[in-house]
């Protein structure tokens, strides 16, 4: 399972879900699902998000073992 810090970083960068969605080229619903953890992004989307937050991918997305 992939966990992420998108919600936290979005708040830090003062972006709305819609703004982030526009910047990374997806719909707002995708950002909502991503933050809820119910959607695993493609590598391209993960790279776009990392680029937007100017951070390495692994600092935003991390693998969590299933319990």
């Amino acid at each position: 399972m992939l966990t992420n810090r998108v919600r936290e970083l979005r708040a830090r960068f003062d972006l709305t879900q819609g703004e982030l969605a526009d910047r990374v080229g997806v719909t707002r619903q995708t950002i909502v699902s991503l933050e809820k953890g119910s959607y695993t992004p493609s590598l391209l989307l993960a790279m776009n998000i990392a680029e937007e937050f100017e951070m390495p991918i692994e600092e935003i997305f991390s693998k969590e073992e299933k319990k």
Partner: protein
Amino acid sequence: MKIYIMIFLRIMLFISLAIMVFDYLRVEQLFIQMERGYIDEFSVGIIKWPGYVFISVVGLLIAAEIIRFFQVRKNKNSILSAYLTAEYDVSDERAVANTHKAVSLAFVVILTYSFFMIGSYLFIPNYFIDHIWYPMFTTASIPIVGLLTYLITYKALANN
């Protein structure tokens, strides 16, 4: 909303086509029965509304298909390569993934449902004499069941 309209139009297309074919076969069957001497005369009334519905739905579907294609092309986030019909949501990668999952489930349901529909002919052995509507409407029900499965699955995934 778009997906509801598209699914509704597709279902209307199949229903109106099934009714039109049934109506034609019903008259054809009466002619054959008369030719073979089973009946001396008959009177028929042709139902016009399925034809009007069919033509209107075809027109609306073509228009919707063209409009949707240009909308998809205009939207910079859309994945144009995944676009096939107006029911497909290709607005971004998650929408495409959800569409694929919904189509996969609809395919499985169509396979299973078709199996039972073919089997159901066992219980209506005289369908070609007394129940000529049966093959038309069972055939039409196959894509309708598939479309409804697609719609329900897609909506469930999209709201997740």
